[in-house]
């Protein structure tokens, strides 16, 4: 066991997969010689050479399409979007080419798109977004969003070994702030499995990525008040682990859905819809969504702080639900 940061866990997964399988290669902007905007691939260029750590032109659609082509030939490309915000430029290649290849004509497309997302660097509307909602109703895609180093490494390895296109959302806020112990030996975290990261009796908080830590902090506060939160980390967003969510809600009968993305039509809305369809008989109170508002991500600190879901939002919602 060794203690690593979330960022180091991602870097290790890439390094180990590239060492294990010569079909794995990386492409993206500034990832080679420079080592990546967030330094995730620092030293890779020297270690693996320019044709396995490819510095691309500024062409998100182009290099995502190129990754698709290489994947169809049996390679396992890992694309880095410098910021998840720029993934919109590659929307068509992801949604209409990568995600539909297998269904339409049997073309296996094992690509991984690493997308550093979320608010953390006061980056405003174009360096802070959580774009998972854009891709959430695209059949054929898989999406993961780890909250800790163990899952970050294990999910990335599983994504690289998976035969479908996977968007891997890595949270910029967690890069150097979250540390954890990970095994020395090879392991994967299977796709499609949520995890209860804190057991509790009264209310389920269903969440993912950086918001897991907000939920855990809220759970600490509420414990003192005698309200026991169970925190479910979705880990895989697409396809959702319905049973993982349902098992927790059957136990607590109440649910808060906490997510950093904007409110309308995304992961939170879907979890709420699933619960109301399938868990109605188990619910003892209203479903509560806590999210960012439906605005672009604002820059100025007071607005940015207002925009982000906070621990106190969860605490207030839990108090309200506890009354049912």
């Amino acid at each position, binding site marked *: 066991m060794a203690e690593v940061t979330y960022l180091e866990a991602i870097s290790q997964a890439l390094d180990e997969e590239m060492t294990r399988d010569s079909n794995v290669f990386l492409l993206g902007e500034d990832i080679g010689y420079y080592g990546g905007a967030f330094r995730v691939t620092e030293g890779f260029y020297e270690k693996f050479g320019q044709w396995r750590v490819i510095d691309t032109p500024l062409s998100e659609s182009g290099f*995502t399409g*190129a990754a698709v*082509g290489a994947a169809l030939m049996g390679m396992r490309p890992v694309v880095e979007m410098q910021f998840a915000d720029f993934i919109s430029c590659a929307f068509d290649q992801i949604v209409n080419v990568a995600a539909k290849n297998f*269904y339409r004509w*049997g073309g296996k497309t094992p690509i991984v798109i690493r997308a550093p997302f979320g608010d953390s660097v006061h980056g405003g509307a174009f360096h802070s977004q959580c774009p998972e909602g854009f891709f959430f109703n695209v059949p054929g895609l898989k999406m993961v969003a780890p909250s800790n180093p163990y899952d970050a490494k294990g999910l990335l390895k599983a994504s690289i070994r998976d035969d479908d296109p996977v968007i891997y959302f890595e949270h910029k806020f967690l890069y150097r702030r979250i540390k954890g112990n990970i095994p020395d030996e090879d392991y994967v975290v299977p796709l499609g499995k949520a995890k209860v990261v804190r057991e509790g009796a009264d209310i389920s908080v269903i969440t993912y990525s950086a918001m897991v830590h907000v939920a855990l902090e809220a759970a600490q506060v509420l414990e003192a008040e005698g309200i026991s939160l169970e925190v479910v980390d979705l880990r895989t967003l697409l396809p959702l682990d319905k049973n993982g969510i349902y098992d927790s809600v059957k136990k607590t009968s109440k649910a808060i859905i906490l997510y950093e993305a904007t409110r309308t039509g995304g992961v939170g809305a879907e979890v709420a819809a699933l619960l109301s369809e399938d868990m109605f008989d188990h619910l003892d109170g209203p479903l509560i969504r806590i999210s960012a508002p439906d605005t672009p991500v604002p820059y100025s600190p007071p607005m940015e702080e207002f925009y982000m879901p906070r621990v106190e939002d969860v605490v207030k919602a839990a108090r309200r639900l506890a009354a049912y």
Partner: protein
Amino acid sequence: MNIEKKDLLQLYYYLKLTRRIEDRVTALYRQGRILGGAWTSNGMEAISVGYACALEKNDVIAPYFRDMGAFLARGITPKRIMAQYLGKKTGVTGGKEGNVHAGDINLGVLGFPSHLADNYPVAVGVALSFKIRGERRVAAACTGEGGTSRGDFHEALNMASVWKVPVVFICNNNQYAYSTPVRIQMAIKDVAERAVAYAIPSEIVDGNDVVAVYSAAKKAYDRARAGDGPTFIECKTMRMHGHSEHDAAKYVPRELLEEWKKKDPIINMERYLISNKVSTEEELVNIDGRIKKEIEEAEEFAEKSPLPEGKEALEGVYASPI
């Protein structure tokens, strides 16, 4: 370029096979037996036949929707094609897709996405994998002149040139993108001018001359295989039918069609084969007879094949389902 008799006859065979299959598709579409759309390459067959026949077995194509000749030349059989049009289980995609929206990885044919030029960056990636693995294979991608206005076209050409990968870009310039004529599609005279900005050598060929397309493609593939990077080939032609078979294309001046009718690629090739004494008229009639029979059999096969069941729609979303 010296082309052997068997190769010339193969070009002729695929030209004629393509024409006859698509004529049959048009007829079935008009009878309401093919649903959805029916896009043909009528009058443009020489482009896809030419570029596909010039490839080696292990090469890969990223075709577009006027490339029936390339599908056939890569070995997708008329039976599978007719079944595809009728939405049958035995079709190229088992009914998941229709018409020319198909691919077969085992034959080196990538599925065609309707978003034109999307297949260009994909072909660059195919070629990139050949380069990384040190394989002497090439990728060929085709799109229409309309597709060359899209960003993916430009991103692909730029990447291919910077990376110097073994890809050949073909453009079927048939003068109309649906109803939009070239003059309001681009401000340049030749599409090939676009390649200049990316330092990619280009060639403009008569798209109705299959020998010219074949020869230009072969030269470009040799260049790519030698590690000298991408080539752009503009094939000038004319779309003789509407955008799709539903479209009467009244926006195309009749005189233009009359003029191009005289340049029909199949008549061109027949003239070439006979005047150069490559083959006799009788030989060509025999080839055509074989083709007619092949198509009859294909249609019968397709008609007799089962349709998929509705619930099969749920299968195959993921290669590794969770």
